[in-house]
Structures are given as structure tokens and as C-alpha cells.
């Protein structure tokens, strides 16, 4: 994760995790990889940030988890969204769009610039 975007990442960490779990259950490493891959490597979550965030979201009932054994390697703790987590993700999306538009307006970013 580039140093100049780390502040932004902190504020959007839970949204990213919720989005990474939107397609189904994943374990911690997969979540980190999903975020890294989908953002072309721009967002790289540190384990020290990811796991505490996952645990906090689980405490807030946004996620639920279960340990599953796999054929090869140690068992994995899979996380998935709860109903509350799904509605939180929707809310995060709406809030983010409003926020992004506001910042775009303020920074006078034209749509073409924003999409590149």
C-alpha cells in the first residue's frame, strides 16, 4: 500500500472488507488477495490491520465466521457477510458515492479524469 494513500485506506478498510466478501465466504489471506488483485495492487492490506478489522467487524455482527478443514494445510477461518453486513455494505456504497462526488466537485475533477 502506497504511503500517501494509507490515511484513506484506514477510513475505508471496513468497506473494502465488506466488498471483498460480497461474492461469498473467504478466509483472511483470500480477502487480502482479493483487495490487492481487484485494485491492481494499489491497495495492499497489512495483516496487522486486516485481522483486527475482521475481528472488530465480527464483534459488530457484520460478519460471521467458521473454521473449515482443508485437504492440504492448516484449517481456515472463513468469513461471510451477515444480513447486517450486507445492508452495511449497501450503506457504505451510497455514502462513498456521495463522498466521492463531493471530493470530485471540490477538487474539480472532470468525469474523464476520474475514470482514468
Amino acid at each position, binding site marked *: 500500500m502506497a504511503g500517501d494513500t*494509507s*490515511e484513506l485506506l*484506514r*477510513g475505508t478498510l471496513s468497506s473494502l472488507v465488506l466488498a471483498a466478501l460480497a461474492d461469498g465466504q473467504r*478466509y*483472511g*489471506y*483470500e480477502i487480502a*488477495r482479493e483487495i490487492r488483485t481487484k485494485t491492481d495492487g494499489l491497495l495492499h492490506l*497489512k*495483516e*496487522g*490491520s486486516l*485481522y*483486527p478489522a475482521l*475481528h*472488530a467487524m465480527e*464483534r459488530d455482527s457484520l460478519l460471521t465466521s467458521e*473454521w473449515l478443514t482443508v485437504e*492440504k*494445510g*492448516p*484449517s*481456515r*477461518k472463513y468469513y461471510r457477510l451477515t444480513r447486517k453486513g450486507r445492508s452495511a455494505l449497501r450503506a457504505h456504497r451510497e455514502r462513498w458515492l456521495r463522498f466521492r462526488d463531493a471530493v470530485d466537485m471540490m477538487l474539480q475533477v472532470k468525469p474523464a479524469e476520474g475514470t482514468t
Partner: protein
Amino acid sequence: MSNHELEEFLSQVEARLALSGPNAEPIIAELRTHLYADYEERLAGGCDPEIAAREAIREVGEARGLAQEFARDAAGVRARRPVLRTVGALAIAVYGFFGAIALCDAYALMHAIARILPRNPNGVLLVTGWAGHLYNAADWLSQHRQVEDFVCGVPPLVVVGIAVGYVARRRGWLPAMVPALLFWLVTWQAVARGKFPFMPYEHIAQPLGMFLALGLGAWLGERLSRSRLRARRFLVAGAALAFAIVCLGGLAQFSEGLLISSAAIGGYAVVVGLIGGLASWLVRRLSRRTDTLTAN
């Protein structure tokens, strides 16, 4: 060989998390999953097993930093043994006491600044003494936190210290500490509940909490120091107690967790207390001498 490296790393982390209570086990299990998944992916990419293991470990980070992150996250961090918990609590008490002396110096510094005292030796001593204390605090923060926490943590520490010292001089210690306490509680709760997502807890609430402890200790210290003899006895007894706590911490071979943090704070407090005590003594001596010279 590589699996062995991974397991060795995990056992290091496990040892460091041992004091974090029952949450340590699932955390280690989850970390094991993560490490092995990363390792397997590197192997699948054609990486040498040893290099893959080393890279996976490097990616996860140094055990110490990681343990701190997880220990902070572990809900209800509790010591397993009541005796050790008591030792930790005692260390915090000692920290508060020595913090008293440190902030008494801050109080004196405010007084000195108000009278533009840096022109004479007392002022120079006070400023350099307090700068030394801030350097110690900064050094402590830089050793125990990440650099960004250190950078973000020190300014609030200094600002709140000056503000509290100023109000304390005008209105007394108690009126200065009550708003600070309320501010700290509100900030702490707001940050903990995610109201300030861009300001993690340790950037604001921890430095404030630290200064709050110093300030409350200062108020107590000021009351105690009205009897100079009693204050000196407290200083000696506190130093001995803190030293014993640090020794006990070392004997118990703690490396992380609440108790060792407390013991480390106790050790830090000894240094601060001794410096503060020495500075106060020097200032008193020099003040007397200056007064005498002026009188002559």
C-alpha cells in the same frame, strides 16, 4: 526446513501473545492459515521453498509488531495470574507518582515562561530539563509504536501538556484536569466507536491518556510535596518499588502484553522521576543562590 521456519516464527508470536489470554489460540491458528496460504502461493509461482517461507514471514511482519497489533485487538486483554496483574497495577501506580514530579516541572516551566525566565540559569535548566523529558517520551513512543504513531502522538502530548500546565497555573490542578479527563473520555469513546475513522485510537487517546495520568499524578505530587521530607521518602520508596517491578518483569520473562508494558512504564518512570527530582533539587539550589546573590 521451510515449514520448520514458519512454525518457529509462529511459536515466537505465540510466546509473545501468551499473556493476551484465551484469544491467543484462535489468532495463532488464523495467522498459521495466512502464512501457509502465502507460502503455498509463492511455491506455486515457482519460488524456492526457503525463500518462499522467508518472504511469507517478512510479509506478515516482525513478530513483535504483529503481536502488539493482535494484543491490542484481543478483546479483554487479561493477565492469567492475579499476582502478575497486581504487579502491573502497582507499576501503573508508580508511573503516576513519578509522572507527578515530571509535570511539577512542567508547571514550573509554565511559570518560568510566564516570567521570561530563560534569561537566567533557572530558566535554562527548566527548559533543557523539560526538553529532555519530552525527548524521553518521544523516544519511548518511537520504540513502542510505529513511526507514524510517534509523529502523530507527540504533538497532542505537547499541546495538551502546555494547555493543562497553563490552566493549572491560572486555576489550579483540579480545574485543569477535569476538562482534560472529559476530553480524553469523549475522544477515546468517539475513536473507539469509529466516529473519527481517520484518527486511530493511539494517535489521540493514548497520548492524551498518558498526559492525563501525568497530570493527575502532578496534582497528587504537588499536594505531597508540600512536605519536602515526605515527598523525598515517596521518591525513594517509589524508585525502589519500580525497580523491583522491573526486576520481577524481567524474571518472569515477559516480552509483550499489559504487564510488561506496565513494568516498562515503571522503569521509564524511574528515569523520569530521577531526572525530575534531580532537576527540581538543582533548581531549588540555584534559586536560593540567585536569591542570595540578588539580595547581596
